């Protein structure tokens, strides 16, 4: 099997030139390209999925979307602003990938609960995002680590629809 021309060229040049950089393995070159595509791909997937309109492309998310789109939060955050880990690019990508994989699995199996509630392990993430914006106004509140803003503000922003 012939290698793609660009790979062959780099390979041949590296082999003939005898310079300090000696890249001989087509596998390594392939991996570099794969990583480039992976990073680029992750970025474009991140972009494609960042709007709330993507989340509501599954019908089961309509109540969540509809309530949010009638809330004050609509003006400042999309779904991901509260439901993904916003600390940095890596954590955001990781939390989106994990949630996406889980949603896809549940959706494919058709085992969608009649009332969609946030998973308990994800409440800490949302809490972190509440404080990302509202931390200043709440700086004088001492709360146990397991207490959440949403323990009381239970209709923010998704209304009374569960």
């Amino acid at each position: 099997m012939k290698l793609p021309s660009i790979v062959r060229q780099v390979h041949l040049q590296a082999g003939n030139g005898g310079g300090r950089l000696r890249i001989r393995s087509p596998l390594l070159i392939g991996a570099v390209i794969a990583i480039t595509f992976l990073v680029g791909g992750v970025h474009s997937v991140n972009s494609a999925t960042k709007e709330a309109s993507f989340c509501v492309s599954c019908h089961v998310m309509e109540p969540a979307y509809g309530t949010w789109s009638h809330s004050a939060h609509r003006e400042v955050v999309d779904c991901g602003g509260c439901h993904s880990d916003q600390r940095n690019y890596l954590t955001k990508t990781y939390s989106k990938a994990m949630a996406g994989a889980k949603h896809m699995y549940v959706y494919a199996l058709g085992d969608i609960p009649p009332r969609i509630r946030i998973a308990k392990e994800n409440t800490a993430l949302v809490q972190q995002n509440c404080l990302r914006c509202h931390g200043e106004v709440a700086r004088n509140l001492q709360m146990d680590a397991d207490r959440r803003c949403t323990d009381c503000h239970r209709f923010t922003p998704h209304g009374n629809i569960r």
Partner: protein
Amino acid sequence: MVKQKLVLVMVVMLALGLLAAGCGFQSKQPIAFRADIPAGTLAAEEFGKFYPKQYDGYKKTAEMANKPSKYGGSEEYDKLTQWPFLKEMFAGFGFAIEYNEDRGHIYSLEDVKKIKRINDNSISSCWTCKSADAPGLIKEMGDAYYKTNFHQLKDRVNHPITCANCHEPQTMNLVITQPPLRDALKRQGKDPDKLTRQELRSYVCAQCHVEYYFAGDNKVVTFPWDKGLTPDDILAYFDEKNFSDWIHPKSGNGQIKVQHPEFEHFQGSAHQAAGLACADCHMPYQVVGGEKISSHWITSPLKHIKESCMTCHRQDPEWLKERVFYTQDKTARMMERAGEVTVEAINAIAEAAKAGAEPALLEEARKLQRHAQFYVDWVAAENSMGFHNPQLSMDTLGKSLDLAHQAKQKALEAGNNQK
């Protein structure tokens, strides 16, 4: 070789990525300290210099208004006029002399000094929940504090309930200062210094808003919690100790005066089971000057339904208030009926005794009446007219009514079996 390295690099990258995602999770919230108030500071004014917003709220406890409350309130009106059965039940005891609706924390010292229940022989146990000075005095004097004459310590008691009753001045952390609660918790196997914030947001109130009695010769203020916190548990505790606050002159019956078991009564209620503390409704978060603080205007939540109820319950405030009254109206009606039959039982026992009834049967009637009175007084003394725990209120009143009828029946039976 290269392939192995590549795999290694990718594994390391993945591991680092996972590590970055999982580590450094900050769930602790920022807290703004403003002061390092010296340990032992008791005066609210001193705390107020550094925490003016909270102090403003505390000072509002001086405001007196019954409305919009229907049954409680913070004006000093006569409960014996409001509920005539109480005067009959408490005959021969201080509570039949003067028994008023309580006012705000800021008045605690003023009110304990003027109430007619205090006489020349009153003891210092009565200062315990009225002043921030009490914990220090108990530390200094030990158990001897409690039976010291009330008037002897008058000059040593200078502050009402203040910030210092619940806050550690240097950190403003919540702290349990009252020895009776510390002791009760230790007997339950709990460390009073290792409670969570949310537990403390109720336990600081439970320093006083509980049932208690004066135990032993030293008259030590003691919480009867060793069997549990339900009315049944606490009655069983008193029965086992054969404890009575006084002998009712008409029935000749040893009675218990229930104090104000708000904390105990709240246990098991829908709101408590949902994880709420006293402070969540009575000290709701409010935004003052661009930051959220706990309201320190400790009063009926009906006075600030928007902050207290509507954060969770998005209904109309008038509707919410009517729901509270729905519970309270029914509790009040049932309480009055249970109280009346309890008084009828007292009268039946008195008449049977006068007629020379069979003593064993009469004792049975007395025991039933003592229990009926304890249960109705539990609801009457608890400050919420049932709302802190509607189901427990009705359960308790049901027991009272049943026992009161049984007591009447037994007294009639005793009267018919004269010696």
